[in-house]
């Protein structure tokens, strides 16, 4: 079977031409944006202001988040309406590290306790804050905490065969419950206000332009890495099984595949990607609070994916960037009407572009290619007819001579 390459390494085999275009675009952005911000003088036409760098960095983390949702929804049919929770947990894990990094520079100047704990009259650091003074530990938690929650949640949900709308509803309930929990002061995560007033990360000042540019570059790299991971998974044979589960779950079981294991695997990978996105988001926006768990956030992610094109990966990123770009423009003009505009976009896309931006693009391209083949075929037929005619004439002339 020629469609399944045998000799090339899996990583390379998983990347098609469009993948390379996407990765090259990210690479270019990762170079041009910092250069335009740091190396080009302010006032010059090509200068990129620092707020724009932070804004675009934030968008890239949203794109990674959208990618994580597309991996499970587009390829395995798991519609999570609670993925904001994994994003927020990754964000909190990073936020906790940034809080510990403040050290004695807080308002109360306590060398160990973050300000909000001093304010609550706490005497010592709760056990779940231990270790977060170490960057590597925080990074580990960024992946492990969302991954573990996804594992436990998925274990019960997939084993009891909760699917479709019911699964979507319990993912909403999960993020809602977490939001309520994180709002409480005695949870130990800063309650209502969340975690903020960060100073630096690994000794780099979070307010400085170079740090922001660095965070932008890391966000681009994380998006690229997340994309490659998704491609490797979805183009592998396991990826074919995921699509089989999406299209005919019970058929897949009757072939002897343990469907719940596949779902669990992809759900955990997706949650970790969302956690990583959250961890990169927090230092760029400077705050994480329980609002990130709000159910509306999770629904918005799904809209990004639907608009960009479910099941195309790049479409998810494109959708996140497009919608958030529009949001930024729109909210500067009419800040209160954005939700109506978002709803409108979603309805219009659902009605007129049900496959999303990238999906519709593919349909157009396929149609174009079919027309081209048709034109070539007609041309060939005409040429053959003309050649036959010519041969006929030649022989007639020869006969006459």
């Amino acid at each position, binding site marked *: 079977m020629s469609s399944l390459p045998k000799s090339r390494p899996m990583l390379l085999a998983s990347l098609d031409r469009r993948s390379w275009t996407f990765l090259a675009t990210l690479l270019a952005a990762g170079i041009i944006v910092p250069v335009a911000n740091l190396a080009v003088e302010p006032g010059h036409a090509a200068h990129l202001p620092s707020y724009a760098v932070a804004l675009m960095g934030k968008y890239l983390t949203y794109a990674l988040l959208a990618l994580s949702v597309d991996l499970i929804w587009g390829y395995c049919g798991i519609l999570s309406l609670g993925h904001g929770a994994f994003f927020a947990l990754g964000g909190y894990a990073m936020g906790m590290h940034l809080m510990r990094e403040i050290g004695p520079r807080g308002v109360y100047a306590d060398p160990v306790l973050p300000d909000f704990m001093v304010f609550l009259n706490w005497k010592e650091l709760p056990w779940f804050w231990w270790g977060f003074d170490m960057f590597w530990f925080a990074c580990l938690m960024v992946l492990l905490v969302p991954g573990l929650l996804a594992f436990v949640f998925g274990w019960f949900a997939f084993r009891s065969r909760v699917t479709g709308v019911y699964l979507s509803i319990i993912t909403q309930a999960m993020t809602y419950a977490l939001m309520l929990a994180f709002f409480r002061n005695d949870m130990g995560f800063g309650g209502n206000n969340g975690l903020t007033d960060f100073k630096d990360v690994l000794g780099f000042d979070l307010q400085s332009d170079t740090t922001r540019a660095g965070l932008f570059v890391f966000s681009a790299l994380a998006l690229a890495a997340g994309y490659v991971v998704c491609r490797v998974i979805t183009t592998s044979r396991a990826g074919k099984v995921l699509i089989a589960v999406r299209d005919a779950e*019970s058929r897949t079981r009757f072939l002897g595949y343990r469907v719940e294991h596949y779902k669990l695997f992809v759900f955990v990978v997706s949650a970790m990607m969302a956690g990583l996105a959250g961890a990169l988001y927090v230092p760029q926006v400077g705050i994480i609070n329980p609002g990130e768990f709000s159910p509306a956030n999770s629904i918005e992610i799904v809209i990004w994916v639907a608009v960009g094109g479910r099941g195309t990966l790049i479409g998810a990123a494109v959708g996140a960037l497009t919608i958030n770009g529009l949001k930024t423009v729109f909210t500067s003009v009419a800040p209160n009407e954005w939700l109506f505009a978002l709803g409108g976009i979603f309805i219009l896309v659902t009605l007129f572009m049900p496959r999303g931006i990238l999906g519709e693009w593919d349909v157009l391209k396929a149609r174009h290619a079919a027309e081209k083949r048709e034109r070539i075929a007609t041309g060939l037929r005409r040429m053959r007819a003309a050649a036959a005619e010519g041969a006929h004439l030649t022989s007639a002339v020869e006969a006459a001579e």
Partner: protein
Amino acid sequence: MTASGTALYLDGVSVTFDGFKAINELSLVLRPGEMRAIIGPNGAGKTTMMDIITGKTRPDRGQVIFDGEVDLTRLDETDIARLGIGRKFQKPTVFETHSVEDNILLALAGKRGVFATLGARLSGDEARRVDRILRLIRLDGRRKEIAGALSHGQKQWLEIGMLLAQNPKVLLVDEPAAGMTDAETMETADLLKEIAGEHTVVVVEHDMEFVRALGVKVTVLHEGSVLAEGSIDHVSADQRVIDVYLGR
């Protein structure tokens, strides 16, 4: 009669849906390598019987034993499929967005775990098995097309091909000739006869010509239990069978 030495052994199986007895004290025994045709009016419980054997439906009562010793009522669909029981659904069920060849590839007997398939490469042996099955089910020329583009009859064949790829010990085939032309129906009968011998096969079918062409022992199901059993001529001469099924 005991289960030992049988391929499939059902005894006193009953299942009730909301008070309605879909299967009622059903008993059925298949020898290894045997092919059996099951006929019966709509709603007789033929599909439900397959659901019970493959773990989709739990019986309220009765024994369901595979290979003389394995109690199937304690296992789920995946376990039962891995033991070597494959089924073709009444409504052809293939992976519509996958290519025809990928449908066969996914069904091919082999490792089923997440990490095994994540790193799986197409081996030469697998490619040959896929080729052989595609030729057998005559979909060789359409291997790259998505399965959703196939006709109803071709989907039936693809699903039979997937069953073959799975290489199970027992095949349960639910109405394989539904929606086929007469010629296709006869080809399907030939295909199933080819499969028999190596495998134990249960075929549910309405088409009497088809059942006659198979030329195997027939079990007539009615209201969830066995009404008659024997050769096609024997059962079609049975007055009760004529009354409930053939005479209508």
